[in-house]
């Protein structure tokens, strides 16, 4: 460390210190003091804004959950533990499942967050699955950095969004895998209820959404179907 070498000579005017003449000790002290002041400022800002940020995030998620489960008026949060759903408090930090219930406390759907690589960055979505219909009934993009005007159509394009009003995801009668996994088809070529029609000019973003749903449903739909009793029972509390 150069600091040791110059620290002792800094105050002596005749010493061979750098031309500018400020001792390393003084520089380090200045940066240290500034750093300390800045750290205090950042911590204060974090402490002051954190409650509001948490509130905003919770509110955004809340809105999204009810957006993707049409007809739901209340929700209960579950989490996945060993392939089953348990109340969130029993498996903190695990993937969360938001079960939506109607006014009669009947289960109408389960919302799950999912994410995957998009064109520019990670795309984060939430989708609603209705177990009685065996289909995805709503999808909303929570976070994306796709190309404005093209990739962002995954959020705004009405025709693309219509894909997710009733997108079939059914389990095979005999097991835990999906009967017809979700696939992407060219615009105007949709013939089966498990197909997603791509957006012209935004194939990569469309593929991203398809992959996200394909991968997430393969994991979460079996969990939902295996835990239907838990889900239905909780609505009656």
């Amino acid at each position, binding site marked *: 460390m150069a600091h040791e070498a110059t620290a002792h000579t800094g105050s002596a005017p005749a010493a061979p210190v750098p031309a500018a003449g400020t001792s390393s000790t003084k520089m380090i002290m200045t940066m240290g003091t500034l750093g300390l002041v800045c750290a205090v400022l950042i911590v204060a800002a974090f402490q002051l804004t954190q409650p509001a940020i948490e509130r905003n995030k919770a509110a*955004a998620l809340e809105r999204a959950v009810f957006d993707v489960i049409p007809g739901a008026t209340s929700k209960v949060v579950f989490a996945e533990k060993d392939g089953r759903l348990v109340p969130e408090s029993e498996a903190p930090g695990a993937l969360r499942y938001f079960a939506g219930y109607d006014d009669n406390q009947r289960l109408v759907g389960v919302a799950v967050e999912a994410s995957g690589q998009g064109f520019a960055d990670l795309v984060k979505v939430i989708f609603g699955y209705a177990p009685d219909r065996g289909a995805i009934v709503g999808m909303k993009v929570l976070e994306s950095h796709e190309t404005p005007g093209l990739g962002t159509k995954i959020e705004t394009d009405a025709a693309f969004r219509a894909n997710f009003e009733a997108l079939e995801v059914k389990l095979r009668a005999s097991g835990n895998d999906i009967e017809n996994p979700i696939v992407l088809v060219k615009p105007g070529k949709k013939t089966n209820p498990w197909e997603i029609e791509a957006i012209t000019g935004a194939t990569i973003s469309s593929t991203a959404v398809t992959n996200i749903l394909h991968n997430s449903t393969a994991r979460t739909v079996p969990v939902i179907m295996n835990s239907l009793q838990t889900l239905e029972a909780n609505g009656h509390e």
Partner: protein
Amino acid sequence: MSDHKVPATQAPSAETFLKGLWKENPVFVMLLGMCPTLAVTNSVINGLAMGLATTFVLVMSSTIVSLARRFIPGEIRIASFILIIATFVTVVDYVIQAVSLDIYRALGAFISLIVVNCIILGRAEAFASKNPVRHSVLDATGMGLGFTIACFSLGAVRELLGNGTFAGIPVLGSAFEPWTIMALPGGAFFVLGGWLLLFSWLRERKAAPA
């Protein structure tokens, strides 16, 4: 860029504040801070939010730089300025998240990139590190508002042509076919070019003998 030192005894003048808005506008005259100017001005709200966030960082860091200017050795002044600027960028990052997640989502990485906005470092180096606090605050506010006006001007034109709306409110009607290019980076260059042309024309006309 203005590099003049205001005499410490002199009272802050309107000129210190106003030059940032017009005569030395950071975007339209000095062509500084092009990256956020071009990248996030695809709508009125985004442009305004970016402008105001930058203004906040600019004013706060200029204040601290000006206050600490006698204690910061010349050798480490740039490092110190960046430390101070980065602190306020982090603060503004939290504040925007607390105010609106939608704006935070729209501005994305560009909030953190305010750190490297050369307008801020430029004002710290050229003005705040040489002048008393009250002058520095005025200078920073003027420059910040000048930047905000520029971002707003670009955002307004781009949203109007690219989306047919103004601050989210439809104005051009459903018969209008949006010019998608305006919402894309290319459109930012076209609109900036247009504004620069207008500003140069106005300046020349003003300078010409009546």
